[in-house]
């Protein structure tokens, strides 16, 4: 195996719980995946499905009432969840960096941008000289498409798109191997969103870093990711190459998600997925999606499906794909029939 094929990030059986009065809310429930250097994973799921909890756990930044209840996060062969506090401090930002959800508001409002960036760099490179630091700040700002003069501004003097770029500059200041970006463009206009995503893509190419992009818009994820993972009620229910996930999704939830996407070619009835996700403290027995699934059968209500291969590179957790059997095509849903009936 060459270095390029060797995964840089391996997540194994990750569990994160929030302790609530009604018992633990399993916000990340036995999630496993791996990522190669330079690869772009898009994690999609509706709000409350556990995306931010997962992003935070990858950095071991989980705070009470949340706790990591099991699993491993192997970064380049070392388990982040087992590191000493000192190792952890060194690893964050240098090897793995998070652009947090709402990063725009996470910038320190009373510090100029360059001071914030310099603080971050000095925490890892305490001996770096001022001139060198200033040069690095200018270089980082340029790398995210900002004019270096922006360094002397306060966050409130920047537009939303500029703040998001500044957050990316800070996250990449030590050239991490893995960048986790939690809904980096949710509050931005479409054009700015496209610019920010293109900037993230360029940064990543330059660094050869792997990216975990978190979002709820399949269109955006499809434009950016190589691999798409779908979260539902704390579980990773399907993962695979982007084209297969969009053109040939296997899990019924993914299928409904893809079918409900409106386009700009033909006007059609706007449909969502009926029903709501289950409360995380009280998951239904069997497959968590069974109460909303149009294909659910007896086994789905009793037995929890495991994530397993359903096509080359594609894995899904669904009883429609019994182990090691040839894969039947998914039955056509009413919506898909409706599509095909159109000329």
């Amino acid at each position, binding site marked *: 195996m060459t270095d390029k094929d060797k995964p840089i990030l391996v997540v194994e059986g990750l569990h994160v719980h929030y302790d609530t009065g009604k018992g633990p809310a399993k916000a990340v429930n036995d999630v496993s995946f791996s990522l190669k250097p330079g690869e772009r994973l898009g994690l999609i799921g509706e709000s409350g499905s556990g995306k931010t909890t997962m992003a935070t756990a990858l950095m071991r930044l989980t705070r009470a009432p949340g706790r990591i209840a099991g699993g491993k996060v192997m970064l380049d062969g070392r388990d982040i969840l087992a590191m000493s506090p000192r190792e952890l401090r060194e690893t964050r930002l240098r090897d793995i960096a998070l652009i947090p959800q709402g990063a725009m508001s996470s910038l320190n409002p009373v510090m100029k941008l360059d001071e914030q960036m310099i603080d971050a760099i000095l925490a890892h490179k305490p001996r770096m000289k001022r001139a060198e630091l200033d040069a690095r700040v200018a270089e980082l700002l340029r790398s995210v498409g900002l004019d270096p003069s922006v360094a002397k501004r306060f966050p409130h003097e920047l537009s939303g*798109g500029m703040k998001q770029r500044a957050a990316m500059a800070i996250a990449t200041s030590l050239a991490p191997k893995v960048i986790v970006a939690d809904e980096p463009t949710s509050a931005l206009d479409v054009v700015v969103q496209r610019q920010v995503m293109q900037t993230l893509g360029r940064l990543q190419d330059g660094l050869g870093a792997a990216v975990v992009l978190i979002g709820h818009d399949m*269109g955006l994820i499809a434009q950016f990711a190589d691999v798409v993972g779908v979260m539902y009620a704390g579980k990773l229910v399907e993962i695979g190459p982007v084209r297969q996930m969009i053109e040939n999704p296997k899990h019924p939830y993914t299928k409904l998600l893809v079918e409900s996407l*409106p386009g700009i070619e033909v006007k059609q009835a706007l449909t969502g997925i009926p029903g709501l996700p289950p409360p995380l403290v009280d998951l239904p027995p069997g497959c968590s999606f069974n109460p909303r699934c149009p294909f659910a059968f007896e086994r789905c209500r009793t037995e929890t499906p495991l994530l397993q291969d359903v096509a080359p590179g594609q894995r899904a957790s669904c009883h429609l794909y019994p182990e090691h059997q040839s894969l039947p095509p998914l039955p056509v849903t009413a919506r898909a029939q409706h599509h095909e009936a159109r000329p």
Partner: protein
Amino acid sequence: MSALIELKGVTKTYGSFTALSDVTMSLSDTNPSMTAIAGESGSGKTTLARILLGFINPSVGEVFYRGKDIAKMSSAEQRQFRREVQPVFQDPFEVFNPFYRIDHVLTTPVKRYRLADSEAKARSLIEDALKRVGLRPQDTLGRFPHELSGGQRQRVMVARAVLLRPRMIVADEPVSMVDASLRATILDELRTLNRELGISIIYITHDLTTAFQICDNILVLYRGAIAEAGAVERVIGAPRHPYSQLLVSSIPLPDLDRAWGNEEIPVSEANSSRPNAGCRFAPRCPHVMDQCWQSAPPKYMPDSQRLASCFLYRDSPIAPDEDVSAVFRLPGVAPVVVGG
């Protein structure tokens, strides 16, 4: 023809800053339609919404509601206008008082406008309105705002508007705080209100995909001025103004054969302060010509169902009517075939 609402030469300035520039438009009273207003943040969408709602007065120009200048209405007329034109805002959470049950936002308007003469009548009005927007009264009433999801809270706001039997709803980014997967159903409900109850709807958004799906017509604003307007099939299906083209090409479509491409897009922030007598889009426009810096482009009509304020169409006729609605398609009239 008396329009439902009509804006004549409406401009809004804040000091020396022009937030909205010379908008003339009207909506048909007899054919209730759905009109999208799109544009980047700061382009004047909310300013236009607040003027339509009568929340702020234009600096120049007039607003007529069913033929009456809203600045000169009697208090009875004003009261009727306030009931018949209802807002739905972006973040419903801000509208709710966290200490009151959901019922409060629904009973208050019933009382204020004396919509019911008994408790039982009030209750049934409220329940009907909730059902209209796909909420189950028994799961909604009696709850506190934080006990509902963002999508449910937004539905309650739509139910509140429906309760007042409005002629028009102005929805300012009603689903931008709601998950992509839940937007569809809420927007579909707005469309049902339009089709079944005959409520005209203004849908303010920067999501052109949903604008295309639910609206009849669209108005694209750039820095306070109308860049392009017309039937959605034309403006979104085949945009003509370079700014609408940029917007449409930036939609993140879940279609791998329609990738964004890698060309650099000029950043808007960079040249925002530079004043120029010509086209507002000139500093970012990939097609900019000498003429574009000299004077502001008039509204040309590249075809009969749209107008575009852009010199690229200087060989097309200039729109004869100041009112942009002249190019709007009325619902019920067969859609135009793009490219046909």
